[in-house]
């Protein structure tokens, strides 16, 4: 399941919705990404997450389908926020559930790694010296490349 939204999300409620009443799920692995304070003591840095409506949902759906094809998963969920966010705010939630923990860990990790290099989001950071667009990280490309078959 995919959601792209401005509002915050409730990890516990989302997890309960995925897992509740099912008795064949042994493992629930979740990842929450938070806004870090990049200004490092020089004052809190807010950011604005821009995205490409339509393509974002498409890309997230594509990587979710890929994860479900690769691993024996019970449920998957990706929620990604856009709009203005403050340090400490939640940005993204990824949950993968499975009878077995290895599949849940691998799928959750795969989803966030791929999302980072494929879903069309961009971050405009407000630092003490003005706004700057966050550069994509080479380490993110490397993290995603690990999952290439």
């Amino acid at each position, binding site marked *: 399941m995919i959601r792209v939204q401005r509002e915050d999300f409730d990890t516990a409620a989302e997890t309960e919705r995925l897992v509740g009443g099912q008795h064949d799920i042994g493992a629930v692995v979740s990842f929450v*990404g938070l806004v870090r304070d990049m200004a490092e003591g020089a004052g809190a840095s807010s950011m604005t*997450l*821009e*995205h*490409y409506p*339509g*393509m974002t949902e*498409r*890309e997230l759906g594509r990587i979710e389908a890929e994860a479900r094809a690769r691993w024996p998963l019970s449920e998957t969920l990706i929620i*990604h926020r856009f709009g203005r966010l403050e340090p400490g705010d939640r*940005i*993204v939630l990824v949950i993968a559930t499975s009878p077995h923990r290895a599949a849940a860990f691998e799928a959750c990790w795969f989803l*966030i790694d791929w*999302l*980072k*290099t*494929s*879903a*069309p*989001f*961009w*971050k*405009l950071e407000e630092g003490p010296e003005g706004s700057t*667009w*966050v*550069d*994509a*990280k080479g380490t*993110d490309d490397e993290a995603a490349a690990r999952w290439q078959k």
Partner: protein
Amino acid sequence: MKLLYFAWIRARIGIPEEDLSLPAGIVRVDQLVDWLASRGPGYAAALAERGSVRVAVNQEHVGLDHPVRDGDEVALFPPVTGG
């Protein structure tokens, strides 16, 4: 053709989207980007770092050799930084 711009490419071009008719002879993404860069200083600045320009055609990531047609939705943006 519908063109969409995001992040600093949008900021430098100055508009988020526009409708354009493709000039004759422009049939691939790299030709489209070259032509757009010639449309004015904002476009030129936005597309100067050609290695940092990513392209989606009809909401799918594509390479520079991907074909473009007049009915396409083409988006130009920097490398993505979600998550």
